[in-house]
Structure formats: C-alpha cells, structure tokens
C-alpha cells in the first residue's frame, strides 16, 4: 500500500467549514502522481512522448468531513490491472477514521485522445495482484 500525507489548508475548505468535496479528488490525484513517480514513471517525459493519464471512472463515498489543519493520509492500492487500464482503491484517513473512499479507473491515452498501453511499470503490477481488468 502507498501512503501519502496531506494537511488541510484554508484553500481546501468551503463555507460548510469542511473540505470541499471535489478537493478529495485532487488529494487522491496527488497521491496517484506520487505513487507513479515512486514506481519510476515520469509523467513529464511520458507527455513529451505523447501519452497522458486520464481518469475513466470514479466511484466516491464521502464518509465524514475533514477540517482545517487535519493531518490526512491517502492510501492507494491497485486492485485490477490490464494493459490498458488500472483500477485503484484510494482512501483518505484521519488517524483511525476513514473519511473518504474511492475506486478510480485510469487509462493512458495519446494527446489526441486515443487509447494507449499503460507504462510497463504499471502494467507489470498485474503479475503482483493477479488482476485482469
């Protein structure tokens, strides 16, 4: 499991006094970027070669609110991997409490929007988790 730390800043909150819901998607995206970087994927180089990641589907449950100054942790786990797509389970935790849970399906595509194979560093994860999306 990959773990990524986030502190809630003023800019993350809304007038409900909690983290604005769409910002959880940014938090888990930061965690994904950190995760692929750790796997050796350079997204700038990938883009220079004409490939970018795209989110294909997200199912998200907002379980409890996060607030200013909260120290959060994003947990990222691949659950399904094929040559063309990867499904990640991502959760946001504050201590022992899970605040947010999502399943994110990602694909790689060309800058023209055509599907591409995932970088090998990701595709080879299928051997580890035995997934077949």
């Amino acid at each position, binding site marked *: 499991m990959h773990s990524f730390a986030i502190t809630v800043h003023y800019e993350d909150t809304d007038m409900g006094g909690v983290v604005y819901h769409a910002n959880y998607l940014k938090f888990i995206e930061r965690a994904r970027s950190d995760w692929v970087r750790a796997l050796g994927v350079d997204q700038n180089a990938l883009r220079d070669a004409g490939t970018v990641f795209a989110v294909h589907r997200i199912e*998200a*449950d907002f379980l409890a609110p996060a607030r200013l100054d909260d120290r959060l942790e994003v947990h990222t786990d691949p659950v399904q991997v094929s040559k063309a797509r990867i499904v990640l389970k991502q959760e946001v935790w504050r201590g022992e409490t899970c605040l947010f849970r999502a399943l994110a399906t990602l694909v790689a595509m060309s800058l023209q*929007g055509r599907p591409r194979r995932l970088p090998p560093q990701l595709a080879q994860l299928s051997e580890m988790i035995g997934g077949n999306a």
Partner: protein
Amino acid sequence: MLHRFPVTVYYEDTDMGAIVYHANYMKFVDRARADWVRAMGIDQNALREQGYVFVVHRIEADFLAPAKLDDLLEVQTRVKSATRSRLVLDQSIHRGHTALFRARATLALVGLDGRPRRLPEPLQALGKLGALMVM
C-alpha cells in the same frame, strides 16, 4: 424536468493533457446544482445562517470524452429520486450532441454539527413527482 447550465472552458480548467482536469467536472456540476436550487428559491447563504449546509454523500462519475479550452458546455441536471433526507441527481455534461461526462450524485442536508437534517420543502416535494421526472 431538466435544468440546463452553460459552462465555458477556461485556461484555468485545463491540465497538461490539454483537456479539462477531471476534478473540475465536479465543480461544473456543483455550480449547476447551486444554480438549480437557487432557481427553486433556496438561499444557501440563509440556509447556512440557520445552521444547515448541503453535502455530497456519494458520486459515481464516468469521464466519456475530454473537453478542451473554449468549449461551450452544458450541464444537464435531472432528479433521479428524492426523500426527506436525500436527493439523487443525474447530471451530465454535453458539448453539442456529445456527452462528455455523466455522474450520479447523492446529496444530503446536514447541520454544522454534521447531523442529517430534512431537505428544504421544495426539494422534498420533488420526490413526490420523482417517478414522473425520471427518464
């Protein structure tokens, strides 16, 4: 009943893939919801002063095709179902005849203490018509 809300894509909405950053679709559909409840006579500032805010409980979103800079988009919002405490909306984003994004959002009203509250009357009333409105 269908609510339509126009959105133009600006530079700030895009990412290095030269398309709209995925999380920004959530902001677009949120703006459409705010416009929709305002049109129904619900004042979210007044609601908050009384101690209530809307929260998103769940979202299922499909990203079908990318939007780009200067695209003129339309957010379409329909009520899927409504109960006293929960509202389910089907929202989609279109560019012309092409659907780019589709989401089902479940909303609730909570007190500032986080406890669930009854939805404002105009929204509860939608539930009674719900069966008629779901396409």
